[in-house]
């Protein structure tokens, strides 16, 4: 069973993965269109005020009217998200390994990590600008800050739940701790790590967007903020749609990577 992946587990052998992926994409698109059409119909029929829910076509028109800020914003936010995600994932797993190895460090530092996660970044917009300036790095840093913690927690859990008998076997081969790590513990923790990575894909996007609220000129976060404070609900939804597109796309990529890498599921 391709456990831990979120898509239907009945897809491994037989059909080619490309065909399955294509089929999934087409089906997803069809469902999306159907839902949008239904919303459009409902909004018209029920005469919903546009500032509660605007018609999807209005939103689409808004994007098509001035596509380039949306395209630019998408690319910019994507870049920030990727930077934050990658650094957060690497750091998250790395620090989990350190904590896993050095219990003392873990007990000393882990609470500090927890505390660090309780600081609302948006209270410190000025500090972020002070430290990182109006740079890509600033956004990536916030994105990183939101990403690494769940990765650490899950990776640690995964590393700790390795079958002790399997570890014993490796030790009987004279395996070094590094070898046990790379050949047993990391692969065994991979399913758990991927749960966190899927979560992190969303969080890193949040980080990038919040980062853009600190005086940036390009990005989906900027568009969102413009819409929010001008109470331009169509613009809000347009920005939301772009975020959803970016977020689900990124999530799908992470999930696909998971399917490719964690093919063995829960078999023992």
């Amino acid at each position, binding site marked *: 069973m391709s456990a831990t992946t979120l898509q239907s587990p009945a897809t491994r052998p037989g059909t080619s993965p490309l065909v399955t992926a294509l089929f999934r994409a087409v089906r997803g698109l069809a469902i999306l269109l159907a839902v949008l059409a239904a919303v459009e119909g409902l909004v018209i029929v029920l005469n919903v005020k546009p*500032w*509660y829910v605007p018609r999807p076509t209005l939103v689409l028109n*808004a994007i098509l009217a*001035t596509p*380039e*800020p*949306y395209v630019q914003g998408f690319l910019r936010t994507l870049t920030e998200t990727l930077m934050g995600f990658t650094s957060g994932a690497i750091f998250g797993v790395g620090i989990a390994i350190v904590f896993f190895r050095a219990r003392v460090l873990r007990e000393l530092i882990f609470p500090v990590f927890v505390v660090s996660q309780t600081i609302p970044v*948006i*209270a*410190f*917009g*000025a500090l972020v*600008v*002070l430290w990182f*300036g*109006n740079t890509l790095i600033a956004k990536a840093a916030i994105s990183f800050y939101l990403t690494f913690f769940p990765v650490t927690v899950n990776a640690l859990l995964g590393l700790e739940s390795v079958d002790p008998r399997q570890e014993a076997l490796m030790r009987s081969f004279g395996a070094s701790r590094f070898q046990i790590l790379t050949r047993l513990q990391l692969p065994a923790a991979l399913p758990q790590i991927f749960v966190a990575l899927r979560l992190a894909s969303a969080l890193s996007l949040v980080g990038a967007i919040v980062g853009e*609220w*600190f*005086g*940036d*000129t390009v990005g989906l976060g*900027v*568009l969102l*903020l*413009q*819409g*929010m*404070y*001008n*109470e*331009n609900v169509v*613009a809000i939804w*347009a920005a939301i749609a772009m975020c959803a597109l970016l977020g689900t796309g990124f999530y799908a990529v992470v999930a696909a990577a998971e399917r490719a890498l964690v093919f063995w599921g829960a078999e023992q």
Partner: protein
Amino acid sequence: ADPVPATLRLKWLPQAQFAGFYVAVAKGYYKAEGIDLTINPGGPNILAENLVATGADTFGLSGGLDSVFAARDKGLPVVCVGISHQLTPFVFVVRADGPIKTIQDFKGKKVTTWFTGANHVLKAMLTKNGVDPALVDIQPQQVSVTPFVDGQVDVITATRYNEYYTIKTRMGEEKLRTFVAEDSGITFPRDTLIVSETTAKEKPELVKAFLRASIKGWKDAFSDPKGAVDTIMKAAPTLDRAHQEFQLAEVQKLMTAGKVKEDGLFWIDMDAVKITQQLFLDAKVISKPVDLAATFNRSFLEAIPVADRRP
């Protein structure tokens, strides 16, 4: 010589409220003054005072007198070198066909306002008109005007250039009645230009040059509003053009009111400043009077011929 790099931190994202600065950049007025100016937008919880005080930004278009007072009260070394909006930029809006005809009618009604200064203006207005603020149901105002449009709120606070536009487009201007702070003898000037004490002391020429170019930009914006809105729309293409045109017109009214006709754009009217300071002292937002002479510095404006400053 190479232009000196400098930044202007806005209080918010690009919009017609800041058109003059964008026009001045677009037309090269800062370049001509030897300044390579970057405009950095603001955002929620981005405090221009903070960034200017620490030197991260050279200039700031800050929240207003409220935040300048607060900053000085907390010891941030910022100096106000100009005031943009000479009048209180927000009004209190009610339904024209509703029961509220006067400020006295606020009693027992649900009033929402921003707890960022507007609340003090409201309280002062109520007190001036003989209403005990405790008898009014004053609540914080969220971003949306929908609760007012839907009738859940009796009185709403609106900036003349933003929320008012939104309410008006949804309900129609004829359905609205507004209450203005100035009618109760209260003024709350906002959108101040600030620099750090260091800049004020060490680079007075830079400040003067910045003011000169900015004023030029604003005058252009007022004389060619279409072109100014074009410039803004280029910086923020998703904005609503009609709204921005309205905004520029409103901002022009706010910036050219009061003594500006004689003393020019960005003039610092010390009388209005004192009224506002008293408002904050009464509300205990600041602990003690600030050193007005150190906080407000008109010398940079005064270095520019007054004829050039007049709108």
